[in-house]
């Protein structure tokens, strides 16, 4: 694999330099090893897929990337610097956003409020202004609201703008969650099974949104997905995990041909 500044995929897409690099990550819970000595990288502007059977350690990997879990061994490099041990909110500040496998929306709030939560880090006006909610505080609120409304338009969820998210159907909740992540204007967007439980139509919509996001905003995306056809369509590069170990890393077609991957998915006896 090339370590060059840029990289051209077989689809002819140009992706940038290494943005994030995982070096020999090992994560344990008590005696259970969730991730064992895994290394891979994510490049600027690419769509990177992480695949693998259930319990392979995919979600744990995402949790390591955004700092929710701290690996016992290994290093995380972000934009050329080794990342020190950080709290999740600090990592969010670096521009890493994510969605969750089991939707983690704020159920007591409306759609637009949920999307607005993505802007939290960018809102700076002090407590005092917040109390008064006039002048700069109001200007700030309106400005961010405008950005959020753009994203709401982009993801076509205007009609549920003021609905409490708890009562929305599953597919829409997933979309609101994506909107919330986008509102953070992330450099790296982590999607944990964005299409789980969706029908074909919803999956197509979601795929389109993901590609559009990558296209329009130039956001780097790392996603976990089970549906291989989706992965093949979307991803520039794929890494495959099984039982916390790395099975393969490469372009979709390379990974698809990998014997170990095929075995893992077909459930060959070890």
């Amino acid at each position: 694999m090339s370590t060059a500044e840029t990289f051209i995929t077989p689809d002819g897409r140009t992706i940038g330099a290494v943005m994030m690099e995982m070096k020999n990550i090992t994560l344990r819970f008590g005696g259970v090893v969730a991730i064992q000595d895994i290394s891979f990288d994510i490049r600027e502007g690419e769509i990177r897929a992480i695949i693998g059977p259930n319990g392979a350690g995919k979600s744990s990997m995402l949790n390591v990337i955004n700092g929710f879990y701290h690996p016992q061994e290994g290093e995380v490099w972000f934009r050329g610097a080794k990342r020190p041990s950080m709290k999740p909110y600090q990592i969010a500040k670096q521009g890493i956003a994510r969605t969750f496998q089991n939707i983690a929306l704020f159920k007591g709030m409306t759609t637009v409020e949920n999307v607005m939560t993505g802007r939290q880090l960018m809102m700076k006006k002090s407590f005092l202004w917040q109390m008064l909610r006039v002048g700069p505080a109001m200007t700030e609120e309106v400005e961010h609201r405008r950005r959020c409304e753009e994203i709401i338009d982009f993801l076509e969820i205007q009609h549920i703008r003021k609905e409490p998210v708890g009562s929305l159907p599953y597919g829409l909740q997933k979309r609101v969650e994506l909107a919330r992540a986008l509102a953070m204007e992330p450099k790296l967007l982590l999607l944990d099974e964005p299409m789980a439980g969706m029908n074909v139509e919803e999956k197509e919509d979601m795929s389109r949104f993901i590609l559009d996001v990558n296209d329009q905003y130039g956001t780097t995306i790392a996603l976990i997905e089970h549906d291989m056809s989706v992965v093949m369509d979307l991803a520039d590069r794929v890494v495959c995990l099984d039982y916390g170990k790395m099975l393969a890393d490469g372009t979709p077609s390379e990974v698809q041909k990998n014997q170990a991957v095929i075995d893992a998915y077909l459930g060959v006896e070890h």
Partner: protein
Amino acid sequence: MFYREAGQYNTTYEQDLQAFPIKQDKIGIAIWLVLAYLFVPFFGIPGLEYGFAMNAIMIPVLIFTITTIGLNILVGFTGQISLGTGAFMGVGAYACYKLTSYFPDTNIIILILASGFVSAIVGALFGLPSLRIKGFYLVVATLAAQFFLEWCFIRVGWLYNYNPSGAIEVPQREVLGWIVTGASAEPMTRYLVVLSILVFLAIIAGNLTRGRIGRSWMMIRDMDIAAELIGVRPLTAKLSAFAVSSYFIGVSGALMVFMWLGAAEVESFDVNHSFLYLFMVILGGLGSITGSFMGAAFIWTFPIILKELGKSWFGINATVMENVSLVAIGVMIVVILIAEPHGMARLWQIVKQKLRIWPFPH
């Protein structure tokens, strides 16, 4: 029919971000304010004796509304349950008492508002455990605050200036020539002071809860892990909730003693009162400022009304009615949690919703 938003369009985000975007709501609030400022101070509550209406109903209800808004910020908006409300009110009251003895010439209203900061600091201090513990465990932490502070109110003589009776007594103070505290203060003066502080604080609470800080509280409430991953710092969010909540509660405690009771000992701040305030929050509606008004008014007036009804209509004595109201409030708590966890505020919204489409049922 009357409550209809058809034809009202918000053309700017500013309009949409107002506290009451619908015209009818604006008129409603204006009517309430006119009533509160221009009618009640002069006429009290029609049918009730003026002094009783002011001292036994209006003033305590307004004060407890501040308490309830404060507790609601913590419980309803941030999802951190607290049984230490009584004691935090005590912190405000004792702080104000000490301030009045150190600064006898300072405007008492400023001192009352300042005493809230003391309780905010104490509140944030006892909120520290919330960074590590959640839910029921936090109940224990707040009970620790409650009982420890109660002990301080008894044992630390400095707090009550070594008064042999162990109570704090409110001195007489004037603002702009009006006596506002002490027994000679007119109910109308005290009412107007309390009302103005309530309006001021309610606006602040409304502003905070609708903006960035309020959202960070609600994020913590709804899903604290996700909130942290999105960039909310739990330390800031939780402690600010504890501090703001305790500020409100502290101010209400100072008001309770200075504008209403006139003297207080530790009994006025005990754990049973903490339950009472929690009931106000639950019945009024978790996470609703409007609900806080309803909850405080309801929980305070309900036993009084019941007592009066029992006596005048059924000849039942006050003792029985006291117990009936205990049971009834308990039952209502359970019923409202089952039927509508968002309390009377949500019921009111449903009523408005019905009005909106009236006379067509669907």
